[in-house]
């Protein structure tokens, strides 16, 4: 017993050095974002100083000049595309996941891997036909085109995740309840919902983030009307040398929804990233 607790304390205690190292690594990784945040509150003149002036007075000028460039329509487009495509993904993925777990079709593993394999088809290989099709039916620069494409981009991820959650539902209880109709609602609420709700939440979080971040489709297929926030950001790629504070403010504003969603649901993030394999 003595030996055992000694071993545990060695593992758990770990030493100051390792804890300090963990802190240093964490700070190094977050530092660029902190730097971006700080610069966004500096005046353009202070932001361009070398070496940097950490104590420079704070100002909202960077944000003001960013919002003067008129980013709201593109942010609204991003919200529309991300939220609607996420809803559509869940709507399509949930029944599919059901047919791959609770009452599985024949060869359901093949279907599951078909979904995953579509993620490996490079986006760029399908881009041209989609562009030509959209052009011929007058669908270019239309937010619905992005909604459909983002749905197809995220559907495989959601199917995988929801399937992994649904396969934890005890089928026997479900079958017993479906014989006795009165019990079905209660079973759904007390047995199925607790398992499925977190699954839907993690799937939705990941789908939202990936849609919000997407650039290639949006860049090629939208113009002035339906352009999304990342496309708007690409306007800052060149010759923004003297507008560092504005660029940083823009990056912060556009990243904010993802940062908030991600921080609020850190555990869901892991489940989502691993396609539901890690709970």
């Amino acid at each position, binding site marked *: 017993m003595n030996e*055992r607790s000694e*071993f*545990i304390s060695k*593992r758990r205690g*770990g030493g100051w050095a*390792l*804890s300090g*190292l*963990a*802190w240093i*690594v*964490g700070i190094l*990784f977050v530092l*660029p974002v902190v*730097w*971006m945040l700080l610069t966004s509150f500096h005046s353009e003149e202070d932001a361009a100083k*070398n*070496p*940097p002036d950490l104590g420079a007075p704070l100002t909202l000028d960077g944000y003001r000049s960013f919002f003067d460039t008129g980013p709201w329509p593109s942010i609204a487009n991003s919200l529309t595309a991300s939220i609607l495509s996420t809803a559509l993904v869940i709507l*399509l993925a949930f*029944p*599919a996941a*059901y*047919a791959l777990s609770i009452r599985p*079709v*024949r060869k*359901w*593993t093949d279907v599951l891997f078909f979904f995953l394999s579509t*993620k*490996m088809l*490079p*986006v*760029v*290989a*399908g881009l*041209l*036909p989609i*562009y*030509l*099709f959209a052009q011929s039916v007058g669908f270019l620069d239309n937010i619905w085109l992005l909604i*459909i*494409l983002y749905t*197809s981009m995220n*559907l*495989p991820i959601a199917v995988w995740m929801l399937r992994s959650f649904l396969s934890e539902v005890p*089928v026997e209880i479900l*079958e017993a309840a479906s014989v006795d109709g009165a019990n079905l609602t209660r079973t759904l609420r007390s047995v199925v919902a607790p398992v499925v709700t977190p699954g839907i939440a993690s799937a939705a979080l990941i789908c939202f983030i990936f849609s919000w*971040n997407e650039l*290639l489709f949006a860049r090629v297929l939208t113009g002035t009307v339906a352009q999304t926030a*990342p496309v708007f*950001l690409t306007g800052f*790629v060149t010759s923004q040398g003297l507008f*560092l504070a504005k*660029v940083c403010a823009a*990056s912060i504003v*556009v*990243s904010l929804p993802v940062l908030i969603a991600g921080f609020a649901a*850190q555990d869901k993030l892991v489940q989502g990233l691993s*396609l539901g*394999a890690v709970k």
Partner: protein
Amino acid sequence: MSVDTETRPGRHAAQPPPDGTMMRKAGDWARRGPLLPALIFMIIVTQLPFVVTIVVSFMDWNAYYPDERGFAGVDNFRRVLTDANTRHAIWVTILLTAGVVLISLVLGLLIAMLLDRKFRGRGAVRTMMITPFLVVPVAAALLWKHALYNPTYGLFNGVLKWLFGDNAPQPDWISNQPLWSIIFALVWQWTPFMMLILLAGLQSRPLDVIEAAGIDGANQWEIFRYMTLPHLRQYLELSALLGSIYVVQNFDAVFTITSGGLGTANLPYTIYQTFYTAHDYGRASAAGVIVVIGTILIATFALRSVSTLFREEVGR
């Protein structure tokens, strides 16, 4: 990881009802019903365009010369494969993907092991660690390009001036090492991804077995080598596979940091340019088909390893 496939009583493949084929067929379709919308949607939106890409790849089709549209045979493929730019792009894609995935996998593993201990502020460190992953990729690329790498007012050269005074070297990071500049920016974003999955893997280790091994006199290295690493194998494979899927297609960082210049154009960027700027549809399609063939070759290996790994889980 609880991705169980194959047998589990009560939820196995369709059981044919005893009476007649009609009934069984009806039952099969009832099972398939909920699956069909998603399946049909995916086939129409992802497979159909690719079929068109294959057709166009055998055509002479440049939007600037609409009159010259016609059948080209394997001309596009010959041009793409003999083109020095495309060959270079293939090489860049391999370097970029392998570099980013390997470095962030190793860093992610080391950091996950640091975080797999109880210490003050562990939650805070974890939150700091995942922040890079939550920055929109274009914004992250802008941040690295303008706020960090920039030779005159970027943070890196600012730190050099802090440390070494006014005579400090002020390198132009992106021009000197364009590909590494992109790789580091991406490693910064992808290490948290790897770390999160590997940390979850570490925390699912059966601790009692590891403690028993410790009592039996196994040292830390032996525990890591013979117990932790084999347990982590599937998590390493999963994160490497998912990371590769995303990084191989990377467009945002290349587009933002170098605009494909300085020899950093990868395949997605090259195809984007052939199609979007040069309007050579035939050639862009041929390059797309080649990318897909390459991806299928790699993915077949990857999927096979993942699918055996999921099947090993049966009965757990």
